């Protein structure tokens, strides 16, 4: 992860849209007759049918008009949950998602930008090049994944947990959860992993995909008589990547006419362990990815195969849950984390009289341990209260940059720091259909001092099928160590950076129609002040992070979904979003005005074979150079079958099914204006249960 690179050529956007659009329309048209809902519904409305196949959540949403038994609570069971989108392991299988990025690009208001090394999540028009997903709290079973140098979160092939081990992904959009991270004003992504009982005792999967990609996983899971539950899993991935990638900006004879050959490889290995016993849970995560970089970042040589980064993310996390006296409960979390980012860049110094091939090493090494304790209590009727504290001790935060041979040290920086936080949340039922949710978080950074951020939500249910939410919050993002101190050639440290602050205002309207039909509409306004952004120092052309004015994010989101008990489901999302730089009026980079997503999953054979399609539309985006990357539509299609002879599972996917040519805006440190994305590609995946 060095430098924020992210940037490209107008020639790429000349895709044949008519082919794509026509095909998308025709695929939907051809599927429609298959979907004639009448027969399905006819069975649906016969009481008793299909209930058995529904999930608990679905069952809880079924309306019971006539009550025959004399049952009922004095109190409400659950009050309007937060605006959460949940993606289950079932969705992951049906839609053939390969990475966390694949999942997240289908969330309303989310889009993903890829620079052929890292994947960057944009949310609600906020996806500035150079931000490593800093404004999202990415959690694995509530363990924070952000590192202590970039405060970044990895969502591509560098995400350290195998996607098959995900039980579900809970995405809480907006500022509605400051329990985790002060800077997470765009949302919280919590990945809930599987446990020993959720998987077969011994199972394996293998996959083959385009660009010479091979992948395998072996998983063991069990629960013993003494209550110990174990899941152990290991995965490997090896992708040759694209043979030839074309970059317009390098189109001259000295740089192979802009073709990078065999420079796109991607490899990872991962190990995962989940152990639980009584109130204790121990999780171990180990992931390391090695990515070849074809884009010649930071002025390194073009068309070489040795420019790469290795990202390693490991942690051990011990959780303890316990009921205390007087209705209180305690959750404690102790963890030890490691993040190593090692980049190797091939430079050609011959123009300045040096060697024609010098390896430059760039590293960011972080280690930290943390403790988090939350006490909560449900007061009988109308109140739920939580209070907690978190401590994070960053005992290693090292960055450096040097040439290997001849050895030249350009930059080395070693630091330690601590963050101490305290938070409280109170949910008060003002009336039967009116909830006030208050939150307060205090963070004390050893580098900056303290900051306090409040949050309030009012949730109103005028009718039982209608929920209205008014959300207000303040949020704060401290500059990370990379932004503060990175000082390799071409960059400049800026220890005077101060935190960026955000106010968030949001309105949400959720409506449930009958059993299987849901609509969500929301509007938001997020002014961001003292925005931390990378710029070029006019004095020397060095990249430097500065507090650069303010930014307004505003927009509307609309989502419609329907899911029938027999497995047929569809969603349509549309977001209109506008990011404005209120201080300079310069167009905000990588901020699409329109986003649309659609998905459709059709059971071909009941609960066994599914055909599914998802598609994303992203409108044009301004690049750093002030040009545009074109709009695109990318549909992906997956055929998935399970329980074949009880032991086999099979899926075949076509990604970017109509071979749309498109490119994402790149970031600083790259010559390219935009970065070309993959065309049509496939994956075949087979799973087997041994027992």
């Amino acid at each position, binding site marked *: 992860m060095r430098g924020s690179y992210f940037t490209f050529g107008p020639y790429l956007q000349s895709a044949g849209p008519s082919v*794509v*659009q026509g095909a998308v329309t025709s695929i939907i048209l051809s599927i*429609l007759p298959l979907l004639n809902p009448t027969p399905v519904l006819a069975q649906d409305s016969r009481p008793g*049918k299909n209930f058995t196949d529904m999930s*608990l959540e679905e069952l809880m949403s079924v309306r019971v008009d006539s009550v025959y*038994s*004399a049952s*009922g609570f004095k109190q*409400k069971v659950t009050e309007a949950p937060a605006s959460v989108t949940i993606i289950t392991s079932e969705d992951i299988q049906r839609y053939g998602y390969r990475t966390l990025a694949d999942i997240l690009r289908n969330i309303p208001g989310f889009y993903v930008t890829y620079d052929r090394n890292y994947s960057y999540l944009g949310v609600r028009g906020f996806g500035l090049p150079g931000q490593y997903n800093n404004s999202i709290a990415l959690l694995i079973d509530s363990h924070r994944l952000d590192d202590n140098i970039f405060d970044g979160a990895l969502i591509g092939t560098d995400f350290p947990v195998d996607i098959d081990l995900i039980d579900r992904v809970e995405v809480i959009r907006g500022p509605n959860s400051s329990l985790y991270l002060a800077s997470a004003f765009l949302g919280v992504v919590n990945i809930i992993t599987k446990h020993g009982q959720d998987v077969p005792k011994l199972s394996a999967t293998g996959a083959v995909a385009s660009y010479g990609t091979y992948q395998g996983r072996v998983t063991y899971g069990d629960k013993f008589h003494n209550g110990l539950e174990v899941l152990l899993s290991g995965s490997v991935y090896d992708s040759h990547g694209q043979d030839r990638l074309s970059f317009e900006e390098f189109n001259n004879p000295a740089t192979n006419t802009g073709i990078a050959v065999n420079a796109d490889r991607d490899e990872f290995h991962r190990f995962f362990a989940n152990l639980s016993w009584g109130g204790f849970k121990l999780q171990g995560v180990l992931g390391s990815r090695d990515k070849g970089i074809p884009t010649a970042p930071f002025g390194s040589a073009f068309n070489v195969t040795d420019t790469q980064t290795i990202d390693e993310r490991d942690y051990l996390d011990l959780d303890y849950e316990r009921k205390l006296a007087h209705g209180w409960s305690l959750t404690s979390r102790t963890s030890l984390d490691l993040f190593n980012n090692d980049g190797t860049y091939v430079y050609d110094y011959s123009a300045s009289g040096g060697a024609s091939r010098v390896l430059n090493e760039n590293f960011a090494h972080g280690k930290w341990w943390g403790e988090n304790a939350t006490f909560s209590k449900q007061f009988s009727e109308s109140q739920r209260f939580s209070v907690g504290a978190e401590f994070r001790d960053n005992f290693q935060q090292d960055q450096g940059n040097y040439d290997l041979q001849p050895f030249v040290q350009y930059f080395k920086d070693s630091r330690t720091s601590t963050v101490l936080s305290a938070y409280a949340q109170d949910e008060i039922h003002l009336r039967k259909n009116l909830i006030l949710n208050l939150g307060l978080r205090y963070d004390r950074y050893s580098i900056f001092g303290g900051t306090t951020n409040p949050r309030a939500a009012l949730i109103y249910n005028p009718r*039982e099928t209608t929920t209205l939410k008014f959300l207000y919050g303040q949020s704060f993002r401290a500059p990370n160590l990379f932004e503060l101190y990175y000082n390799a050639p071409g960059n400049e440290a800026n220890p005077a950076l101060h935190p960026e602050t955000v106010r968030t205002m949001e309105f949400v309207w959720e409506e449930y129609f009958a059993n299987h039909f849901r609509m969500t509409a929301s509007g938001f306004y997020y002014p961001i002040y003292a925005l931390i952004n990378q710029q070029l120092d006019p004095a020397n052309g060095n990249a430097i992070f500065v507090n650069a004015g303010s930014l307004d994010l505003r927009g509307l989101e609309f989502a419609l979904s329907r899911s029938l008990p027999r497995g047929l489901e569809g969603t349509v999302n549309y977001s209109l979003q506008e990011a404005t730089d209120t201080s300079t009026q310069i167009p905000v980079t990588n901020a699409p005005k329109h986003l649309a997503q659609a998905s459709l999953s059709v059971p071909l054979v009941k609960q066994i074979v599914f055909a599914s399609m998802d598609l994303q539309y992203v409108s044009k985006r301004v690049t750093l150079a002030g040009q545009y990357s074109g709009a695109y539509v990318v549909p992906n299609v997956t055929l998935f079958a399970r329980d074949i002879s009880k032991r086999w599972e099979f899926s075949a996917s076509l990604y970017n099914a109509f071979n749309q040519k498109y490119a994402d805006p790149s970031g600083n440190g790259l010559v390219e204006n935009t970065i070309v994305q993959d065309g049509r590609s496939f994956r075949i995946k087979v799973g087997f249960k041994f027992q």
Partner: protein
Amino acid sequence: MPGIASRIRRASFFLVCWLLSGAPQALSQKGEGVEYPLKLAFLYNFTKFVDWPPDSYRGAGAPLAICIVGRDPFSPESEGDLRTRIVASHPVKVLNLKSTDTLSVCHMVFIPATEKGQINKIVRDLKGSSTLTVGETEGFAELGGIINLAVEENRVRFEVNQLAAQRAGLKISSKLLSLAKIVTDSSH
């Protein structure tokens, strides 16, 4: 890229049509007679989120017994559907039992509202056995029952008495707990 947005709109339009096409029918759906088929589906669903100790089964493929005490409110059709199901290699068996002394063979015991007079005796008799007791009477969970189903604002909700589950040696998954209202024994 002119036109792409309009094509998307068109494609989305069809999807929206499909989404909306079911709404009127679904809205007109009557809830009559839905309650018990629905509650039976809850019982079935609970089996997936509750761990019985291995010794509560006679063998690897031994049945998982769901017992209904007294007057059976469920229809033979929906019970028949349940009997075709398999939960973690255990075929589901549905039994209708009158007397409390045979309940120890059950993994789950459902006590309908009509049998609420028996709650105390059943809960007492089943103490120490790994039986998931499910009721549909107010105060059931506070009396030591493990799960209580209730209809609230025209939706079926449930309460879980975690302490009672622990006493019975049953592990209830956090997923189930996250959807439940947690209650404890009422102090006597």
